[in-house]
């Protein structure tokens, strides 16, 4: 029997490779088809893709983002702190230089709401305010309650912007970066008041 020449061996090896590759390509194509089902899922069931947390559309709005975030009742203090500090930044058109807050922070929220989850009147959280304001909080011993007539005047002047989580921002005539936290008589809404408009004398 004649010996196989090197050329024959190369040809055999090449033929084996072609057959191997062809089989593998068919298998690859077959299992890849299953992958395409994910694309189908993305198109037909966009909101239910993969995760518990669904795609949402808050855009460049940190406060809107809190509305789409996990709604766990005792996390509302975080969302309210985000709203208060974001309101201050929007008025300042930049960073907050000072955010005066009452040492007795509980003075900014009222008695428990009827809602057993306390959803309607979330409080504020000291460390959240400090962190989210970039450490601009200055604790001060004052009564944060504003007289109703002052709030009414600001509202009639169009200075008050109501925000989510029972927060409101009071606009000054010019952007400023120092603020005082206040609340109304019922301690329902927290007001972010520019220092120039606040009845509290701050240095």
């Amino acid at each position, binding site marked *: 029997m004649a010996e196989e020449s090197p050329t024959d061996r190369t040809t055999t090896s090449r033929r084996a490779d*072609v057959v191997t590759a062809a089989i593998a390509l068919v298998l690859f194509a077959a299992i890849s088809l299953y992958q395409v089902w*994910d694309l189908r899922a993305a198109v037909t069931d966009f909101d239910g893709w993969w995760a518990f947390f669904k795609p949402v559309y808050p855009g460049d709005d940190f406060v809107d983002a809190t509305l789409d975030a996990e709604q766990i009742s005792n996390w509302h203090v975080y969302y309210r702190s985000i709203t208060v500090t974001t309101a201050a930044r929007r008025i300042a058109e930049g960073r907050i230089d000072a955010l005066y807050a009452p040492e007795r922070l509980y003075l900014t929220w009222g008695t428990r709401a009827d809602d057993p989850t306390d959803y309607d009147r979330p409080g504020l959280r000291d460390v959240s305010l400090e962190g989210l304001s970039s450490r601009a909080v200055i604790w001060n011993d004052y009564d944060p309650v504003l007289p109703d007539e002052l709030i009414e005047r600001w509202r009639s002047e169009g200075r008050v912007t109501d925000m989510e989580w029972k927060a409101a921002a009071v606009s000054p005539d010019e952007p400023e970066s120092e603020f005082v936290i206040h609340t109304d008589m019922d301690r329902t809404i927290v007001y972010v008041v520019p220092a120039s408009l606040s009845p509290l004398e701050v240095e």
Partner: protein
Amino acid sequence: MPAGVALTLVSLLVGWLALAPARRRIGTLGYHLAAIPVGLLGWVVCSAAAMALGVGFGWLLVIVGLAAWVALVAGCTLWVTRSFGEPHFAKVPWWSYIVVLGVLATFSWAVATAGITAYSADGWSQYVPDGMVMSEIGKTSGRALGHRMVLLTAVHAGYFALGGEFPYVIHPVMGLVTAGLLFAGVWWAAARSSRLVRGALAAIVTTLLVSNAVYLFMSLYIHSHMITAMYILAAIVATGRAVGWLGRERAGSSTEPTWLVIAGLATAAVVLARPDGAAYSLIPFAVAAAVLVRVRAQAAEVDAYFAPLVGTSALVTAGAMAQTGVWESDKLPGIVLLAFIGAQAMVWIALRWLSGRDTNWLARGTNAVRAIVALDVPVLLVVWRRAGEQGVAAVQNMTANLLSQGGYRFVWPYAAGVLGMSVALRPRTTRNPYTAYVLFAIVQFFAVALAVHALTHPGRLGWGDSFNRVAFHILPVVYLYAGLYVSELVAAVTGQRD
């Protein structure tokens, strides 16, 4: 201009400038693809300066920080390429800048306009506020560093410095760049085929990735996953390009040190991206080390990879420690990060020492990879023994999540099918040496994950489990591997070989 668009374009510009001296060494496609990963890393230098000085991201700090980054990368590239001959690619065409700028501007603007994103408490309560605080006052804490590290915080800080309020646009942009890197990786892997076949292969594999539900979600998710996946893929692709196994310019006979610089920078980014980033950086790190041994790299080539890796990691860590000292943390204490950087430096010295010596056995075939696997085995045995029941629980949760509970649908069975098929059915005459290294990267990922999760926390069932999300980091590399494998098959069927 929306802040997300500005962040994208500023990062692109920084990347372009940093790589400008080397653009003809890496070609038009490589130059544009590497620009965003290199540019984004510039923000971490701003963070290092902000932390060291205790000041926020003012215009002066941002301009000086980014300019310093451009000078460092450009200088490093010029230094390592000084004895590597003339560039071998044609001039980067002017219109390619317009195309890349147009694509990124349009894409990021579309995302900004749509306002689409996804996040959990990790995003809104940590990655976003941490970036805001970094941007405004340059402050961090041991907890922030130990739990979130620096990279994404720095990128978010850049977003705030450019006037944004909720940083979401950059995440889909990183998803786009990841898809681009995969397309280019397969395009280069299929260099033996015609342009039409290369384009088709690259398009098919990239479509398989971007049609993947997990990829789509991670492109939106405000977390460290997409940025880590992007940099791991960038490091693996850059290492393959450096040695010429992706593409056919050198075919393993020498390296292009500019690509090694990019691989080193991408590995440093993985270190800085997450608290477990240092552990997962061992994947691109081990691949690069094995490749450098395989090609009998000169000392200058070893420096090209390690100088950016160790330099960037050390620079940023020094900036953080200037503010916090050696921080304590239940996740990543500062001392552990220092030990990792020290270990990288030791390997650098060892490989430099090897570069002037006879490494015949180690440099042959995939022996360097085998040596690393041989080192892995006793380490994993010790980890397994120490982890005890927790290790078993971790493995159970990991496998149950990947195969059924974690929401990956067909992804991991698919990956297992491709990996198994590639080992069983593989043509001999058209094998690309880099296929073995990419397969090693995938195996190494699971070895590191096993060690991390068996020792730290066994996890839980469901998509939100830490490892379940972390598993995404290697997914683009799995698709790159599939692309490498299919390009071998096509070359065998069509009769093309080196």
